[in-house]
C-alpha cells in the first residue's frame, strides 16, 4: 500500500473548497489550515499563464519531519501516511522547521497538526474530505502499489511534477500539468 494524491492543475480553479471541507471534517480551528491553494502567475499581458493548485502535506517517502522528531511523534502510518501521535508530541517545532512544504502548524492545544489523508475516512473506503468535495474533481487519491488504480493510471498517462524535488523528500503529492 502506498497512498498518494494528485492535483490536476488544468482543472483546479482555486476555490479553496478543499480547505474549508478539511476544516469542518477534521475540526481544524478557524485561522489554521491543513491544506491551502497556491496561484502561480507567469508572463506579461496578454501572454499569461496561471497555475492554480491545492497543496498539503506531501506524505514524503523520505520525510524530514519524521527524521527530525525527537520523540517519535511524527511517524509513517499504514500506506505511507505521515502522521503525528498527538500524545507523544511536545510541540518543539523541529518538524515544522524541517518541512520544505510548510505543511504543519501548532494546534492551539499544543501539539503539531497536519494532513492525515483523512485516514479515518479512507479506512471506511471513502476519499479524503478534500477529494470528495472538490467541485472540479481535480483531486485524486489512491494506491500507487496497485497498478490498476486510477492514481497509477493517471501517473502513466499524464505529465506531472512534484514540489521541490531537489529537497530529496520523495514527495507523494503529484501535480498534473
Amino acid at each position, binding site marked *: 500500500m502506498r497512498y498518494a494524491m494528485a492535483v490536476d492543475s488544468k482543472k483546479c480553479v482555486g476555490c479553496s*473548497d478543499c480547505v*474549508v471541507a478539511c*476544516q469542518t471534517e477534521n475540526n481544524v480551528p478557524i485561522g489554521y*489550515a491543513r491544506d491551502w491553494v497556491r496561484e502561480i502567475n507567469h508572463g506579461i499581458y496578454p501572454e*499569461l499563464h496561471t497555475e492554480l493548485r491545492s497543496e498539503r502535506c506531501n506524505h514524503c517517502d523520505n520525510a524530514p519531519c519524521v527524521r527530525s522528531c525527537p520523540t517519535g511523534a511524527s511517524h509513517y502510518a499504514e500506506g505511507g501516511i505521515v502522521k503525528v501521535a498527538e500524545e507523544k508530541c511536545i510541540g518543539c517545532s523541529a518538524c515544522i522547521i524541517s518541512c520544505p512544504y510548510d505543511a504543519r502548524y501548532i494546534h492551539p492545544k499544543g501539539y503539531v497538526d497536519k494532513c492525515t489523508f483523512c485516514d479515518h475516512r479512507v479506512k471506511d473506503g471513502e476519499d479524503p474530505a478534500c477529494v470528495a*468535495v472538490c467541485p472540479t474533481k481535480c483531486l485524486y487519491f489512491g494506491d500507487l502499489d496497485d497498478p490498476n488504480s486510477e492514481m497509477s493510471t493517471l501517473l502513466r498517462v499524464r505529465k506531472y511534477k512534484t514540489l521541490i524535488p531537489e529537497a530529496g523528500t520523495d514527495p507523494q503529492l503529484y501535480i498534473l500539468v
Partner: protein
Amino acid sequence: MVKSRRDFIKISALSSAGLFVGNQVVKAAASAADSEKQNSDYKLPSDLKRTPTYCEVCFWKCAGWVHKDEDGQIKKITGNDLDPNSNGRFCPRGTGGVGMYYDEDRLKYPLIRTEERGKQTFRRASWDEAFQYIADKMAKIKEEHGPEATALFTHGSGGKYFTNLMKGFGSANVAAPSYAQCRGPREVAFIATYGQGINSPENTDIRDTRCMVLIGSHIGENMHNGHVQEMSDAIDKGATIITVDPRFSTAASKSKYWLPIKPATDIALLLAWIHVIINEDLYDKKYIEQYAYGFDQLKAHVQNMTPEWAYGITTIKPDVIRKTAREMAKAAPATIVHPGRHVTWYGDDTQRLRAVAILNALLGSWGRRGGFYMPDKKSVPHAKLPPFPKPEFTWRDAMDGKYQLADLALANGMCDATIPTSAMSRSIKGWIVNGTNLIETLPDRRKTLAAIQNLDLMVVVDTMPMEITGWADVVLPECTYLERYDSIRDSQHREPTIALRMPAAQPKYESRSAWWMAKNLSRYMGLEQYFPFDTIEEELDHELKQMGTSLAEMQQVGVKKWKRAYDDIYFKDGEAVEFFTNTGKIELYSTSLAEGGFDPMPTYTAHPEPPQGYYRLIYGRAPMHTFTRTANNPNLTDLMSENAVWVNPKVAGEWGLKNGQEVYLQNQDSVVSSFPVKVRVTERIRWDSVYIVHGFGHANKKLSRAFGRGASDAELITNVMVDPIMGGTGMRGNFVTFRFTKGEEA
C-alpha cells in the same frame, strides 16, 4: 438642511439599549415561549443523524446533508448525490455554510427604532410588539395611501411567504434585485429570440459541449456549482474554451483562446463573429431554414461588421476573430456561447444578449446536445388561496410607460416609485426587505437613501446586521437556513427534481423563519385566510402528498427525482418545433423589439471611456463569497477576508503603487470609498481597468469580521446606464482613480 427622518443606526447601540429596557427582555422571552406552543415549524425529528437541506448561501440552491457531531452540534455540510445542482459536491460557500449558523454577530432579537435623548436607536422588542407595530403602520399606510403604496424586496427562499402576505394586503410591488440588477436582460433577450428565458440553473449543456464561449462570465470564480463541475468535465474531454474578458480570469487561464477585449465593446465582437459565421457559410443552414425568422435581414445587417471593423473597436485582431468563429462552427451544434448571469453592464445589455442568442441560433445550438438542453421542472402544487385584491397602482405606473418588456418587477423601479415626483400622483410608503442588502445591491446609493427617507415604514428581515438594517424601523431576525423549513425547491434541470430543507437545529437566539413571521404577521394584519396551514410541516406535507411523496419520505431522501414526462431534452433531427415568439420561429429579427420601437437587431454603440488618470471599475466574484452576505462568515472570511484592487503593473508604475499598499478609490462623481483597499499589482488585468471582488467594504460596525475590510464597488457605482428595453441597471460605466488619503487627491 432638513433633519433626516431616519438616521443610520449601528446595531451596536443595542448593547446599551438592553440596559434600560430590562423588563422588556423578560416579556420578549415569555412571548417567544407562547409562540413556540402555537407554531412548531422547528420541531425536529430526533432520529435523524443527518438532515436534508438545500443551500441558501447562493441562488444555486444545492441540496445536501447537514451532519452533527457526537454532542449534537452542527459539524459539517455535504452534498446530496441525487441532486443535479451539486452532484454530491458542495462549493466552498456551501461547505462553509456552517459559519452562517455559528456567526456570533447574527441578528438576535426583534428591534424597533426609537428616539432616546434626541438620538435614534433600536430597542429590543418582543415578537408580538414588533408584529403589532408593523400591522399598525401598514394599516395607516393603507388608510392614507392605499395598500398599493407598499413594496417587498426579496431574495431567497422565504420570499414566497412574504409575497403572499403582500399580495393579500393588496400590493403587487414585489421585486428581486436578481432581475434588474443581474440577469434580467438575458431573460428578455432570450424570450425575444426563442420565446423562452434561460432561468436558473441555466440550461447550458456544458457537460457535453465541445466548445464554450464565455463573455465576461467567470465560471470558477463565480461558483455556480453544477456549471463549474461540468466545465471541468468538458476540460477533461478536451472541449475548446474561448474566454472574452479584459481580465485574465481563472476561466481564461483554462482557455485555448483568451480574447483580452477592450471593455464595453463586446457587441462589436459578437456582430463580427455573426458576420464571419454567415459570410463564410458556417451557419447551420437546415436549422436556420426550418426554425429561424429574419435571416436575410440579419445577413444584410451585419455586412459591414467585418472582423477588421471590430478590430478597431475591440482591439481583438481580425484573424483571432475569424479563427475563434471557425472553432465555434467546427464544434457546432455542441457549442455554447454562454449567456452569463450578471449581465447588467452598459445599458444596452438586452441587445448584447440578443447578439449572444442569435449567434447560438446560427450555430444551431439551442435544443441540441452540447448546446442548450430543454429543461424540465416539476412545479409544486401550492394550496389554493382566496383571490388577492386587485391593486389599482403598481411601480409600473411610475415608469411613464417605459420598460414594458420587463417580464419581472424592477427593484430599482420600485425604488424610483418611492421617491415622489410632480408627475406621480402616488408613491410607495412602506417597504419590507427580506434577505437583500439593498444599500449594496442597488446602484446609485444616494437614490436608495432618498427613497428610504420617504418611507413611513421599513421592515428588514435578515440573519445578519447589514447596511440596510441600520435604516430599518423594525428589524426581524430571521433564522439561518440550517434552522428552518422552507418552500420546496423545484428548480429546472435535465430531469425534474425537488429538494427539501428542514431544520438541523433549533433557531438560535430569538430568530425565526420567514414562514413563521409571515404567518404571525397575517394574524395581526387580518390576512389569516392567505395562510391556511397551522404549521409549515402541514403545508409542505400537503404539497408533497399531491406530488406522490410526503414530508416523511423527503426527510429521509432530501431529493426526489422524476423521469421527464416526454423524451424532449433535445430537438430531434428535423422535428417541428413551435417557439413562443410572435412568428413561432427563432427570431433573428425580433418582431417584439421592433413593435416596442427598439432595434430589431443588435447594433454596436460606443460607450464613454475613462478620462485621463481614471480606470474602468470592473467587479466580479470570488469563489468563497456570495454578494455581501458571506463577508462576515467566520469560515469563509478565513479563506478570504477582504478584497484587493487589481492594478496592471504599468499603471502601478505610473502611480508608484506597491503590492499590498492601501489606497482609496475615487469615482468620476468624486465619491471616495469609505475604506482603503489593498493594491494587488498583477498582469492579469488590462491597463485601462481595475478589478475588485464585490461584497466587501462593509460599513456596519456590528459585522466584526467584515467591517472596514476592503472597498465596496456598489458605493462607487453612481453612474447607472439604464437599459431602455427592460429597465436593467448597467453598472460598468464607472471610472475610478487612486487616492493615498481619504481627504486629498493622490
